[in-house]
């Protein structure tokens, strides 16, 4: 499902002389006629997949490594191959964008990297520790302490104040209330919502809610922030602000950020873009 902005972009691009040519049309069809994805793929192809664009980061240790990842799952009687032989390395403090068309496997990859799901084959190593051998309880602890998730649809608890919403990951990690309160205050200030802590999510704008969701993801001081289409439900202005927020977080907290997005502009601001097509890194 395209956003209104994206539909406008596609319509505009389709009217340009370049896109009128049959060769370009054939190329676009490979990307579901989504010029943004197509351009992302071109850009990704132009970037070295093995190392970061920001050369300073290449000296940092690899925090996240995926090797020969494959994931298949059943939809009814059919088996869908979501990922095939995906290998990647992400360095500490790196900001990586994963792009691809719908169904390309980018969200699946993000969930595997976050320990929410297990790969059919291949290994994921985080901080040198393999997720494959972890039991359910260890995976929960890993998600709680190492990973922060940001979702497209925010998923804040509607009946809790912003303060309480930010505290939720701390509740599961067993953090003391006083520590949670201080951390929530710090994060709210970081995302510009310090004066909104007592408000309910319904009293905030879409952009504010997503910033709150990012702050929630940072509650347990994760090393890695995994964001699944965080701008997908926002207008361009708010989307830009969110990406800026990631950049700020990376700078302020040294957090590694993996961003799954359709948004070419957002992907462009990452250190590196990994493009997926039909479950394969292209």
């Amino acid at each position: 499902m395209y956003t209104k902005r994206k539909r406008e972009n596609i319509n505009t691009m389709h009217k340009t002389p370049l896109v009128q040519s049959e060769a370009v049309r054939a190329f676009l069809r490979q990307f579901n006629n989504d010029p943004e994805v197509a351009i992302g793929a071109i850009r990704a192809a132009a970037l070295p997949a093995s190392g970061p664009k920001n050369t300073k980061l290449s000296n940092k240790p690899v925090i996240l490594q995926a090797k020969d990842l494959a994931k298949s799952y059943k939809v009814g009687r059919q088996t869908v191959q979501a990922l095939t032989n995906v290998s990647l390395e992400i360095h500490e403090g790196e900001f990586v964008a994963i792009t691809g068309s719908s169904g390309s496997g980018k969200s699946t990859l993000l969930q595997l990297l976050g320990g929410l799901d297990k790969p059919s084959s291949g290994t994921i190593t985080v901080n040198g520790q393999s997720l494959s051998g972890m039991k359910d309880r260890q995976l929960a602890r890993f998600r709680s302490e190492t990973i922060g998730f940001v979702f497209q649809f925010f998923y804040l608890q509607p009946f809790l104040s912003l303060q309480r919403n930010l505290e939720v990951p701390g509740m599961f990690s067993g953090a003391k209330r006083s520590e949670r309160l201080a951390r929530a205050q710090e994060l709210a200030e970081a995302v510009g919502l310090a004066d909104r802590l007592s408000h309910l999510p319904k009293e905030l704008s879409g952009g504010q809610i997503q910033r709150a969701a990012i702050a929630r993801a940072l509650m347990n001081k994760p090393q890695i922030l995994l964001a699944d289409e965080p701008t997908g439900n926002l207008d361009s202005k708010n989307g830009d602000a969110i990406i800026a927020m990631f950049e700020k977080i990376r700078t302020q907290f040294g957090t590694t950020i993996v961003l799954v997005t359709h948004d070419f502009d957002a992907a462009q601001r990452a250190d590196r873009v990994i493009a997926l097509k039909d479950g394969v890194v292209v």
Partner: protein
Amino acid sequence: MIGLVDATVLAVTKLRIRRIRTIVTVAVSGILFAALVAALVVFQGGLRSVTKFNKNGLGSRYIAQATPDFPLGGNWFQSKALMDRAQEIYDQTVSDKKAAAKSLGIPYDSTTEVAPTVNPDGVATHTYLSLAAPSAQKAVQEYIAAHPSPGLPDLRRVSTPYHPIDFYATTPVPIINGLTPMDNGVESFADPSNPASGFNISNDFFQQNPFSLMPTQLTKPFMLSHTKWSSKSDAIPIMVPYATATKLMGLSPLPAGSSATKKLARIQELYAKAGDVSLIACYRNAVSVDQIQTAISTAAEIAKNKGNKAYQKPELIYGLPDPASCGAAPIVSDKRTKQEISLADKQRTFDAEFGATIDPDQQKIVFDIVGLVPDQQNAPSNTASGILQGLVGSSLAGTIAIPQAMYNQLPSVARYDSILLPKQQGFSFGLSAMNYVEFSSADAARGFITHTSCTARSNGTCATPAKPFQLAAFGSDSIALQDLQHKFSTFFKIAGLVVVGIAIVIMTGTVGRMLADSRRETAVFRAIGAKRIDIASTYGIYTLLLSGMVAGVALVIGLLVAWLFDEHFWKMATVHAQLAFGGANSQQQFHFLGYSTQIWLVAGAAVAAGLVSMILPVVRNIRRNPIKDMRDE
């Protein structure tokens, strides 16, 4: 693991999802449990009130009443032996009277003797003993004297295995034909043969109510705290039903639809004032009654023949005494010749020889009310009042009793004995003395009645040597009350299980739906670090809160319903209890509010139902793949 407070914070948010469903669940389940709470509180309250009232009456005691067989057995009125003996007595009497009349030189017409048997339709098999014949009565009395009914010694023997603690006996007083009430202190000289004269047997207190001389142990609970009676007054102490007391006090019966408040006020008025009320009666023996009736009929005859010169007045004319005196009928005119007087004297000698009373005897007798007993049950047995009265009403209901110990203190007790307990009681052989045995527990009384009561046979008899009595619980039926308690306890357990079952189904639906609605949220929680136990804890607390609300609603609504029930019915129940139980405390109230620790059991069952309802949906929920739930969104 998530802390209790944090789990509660998250659980509270679940209560705010789908509020209508939550409210409906809490309301429906709460009302189901509330019904149990209300039933418990009302039943406990009612039971306590019953127990309280019972203590005033006989209800807290375990007494069995032992009724012997009718002395003559079944089909006695067609007993050939009795009829033969009656005929023999009849023949002997006629023969003796003929001889005596001849000896005295007076006429005797044997056809005036009542035959010992009757044969209304001429069919030989339809010959019956004539109850009106003195010969038949004598035959019966002879039989009873030769075959005494089982009495206290027999009762002691058969009840020994059940460890009885006391024995009592009551003496029935037959209906005394010559005893009539003096309304407003005045005797009514109505003609029984002429209804127009105002004679109405249904107004005759002594004709309508059987009496008993009862031991103090049985009458004590019903005695009034205030009464004017004293042994020196020589008045006979009596306990009467409420309705009788109402009449004797000159009060109009309350209309059927009277309010409970009015009924209560009436009962309290009776208890306050009945002790000041006396019933004055005039006792006349058969000769005195005959003279009064002769005076009435002669006066009527003379009045009828006024102006009739051919009419000749009787030689001996009786007048009526002062109606307030209960005196003998005075002779107004006696124009009999010496020969007629001599003949009359010979007739008196003749009558005396054959046991007839020859002199008039009359006396004013005062009865002082010393106690009140409940009225005879009159409510249909299928009404609440009827059921209550049937269960706990006193066996003394409707009885006019004379407390034996008080009666024995009277200076004129011998004289009263001769009036109330005549040796020649007429046809009163059915009135056997009633025996009672008291036990210390309901179980002992129940066991005795169940195992020792005889079983009625088709020929109308019941007793056997081993089981000489027909036995029944006496007093307020404590035994039935205990049985009722056991039955309610069983009913409550079954109803409780049904309610818990229904509540589990309802709450499982709600918890299940809530969990289904929260799948995405659960997945998000898992993504941000929640363990399965965190999720289970949160839903556990949610279910506890939900079932806690159900328990709270059940307690509040249940107690409220019980309170409303009590507010609405306590007055009427008090009236029924006062009428059914008797007892001297008219201030006592019958309430339905009774605290029972079992209401906490109901609240606990509500919480337990919630927790049970949680198990399946939560287990199912935490086993789900969070990715699938996020993807489904």
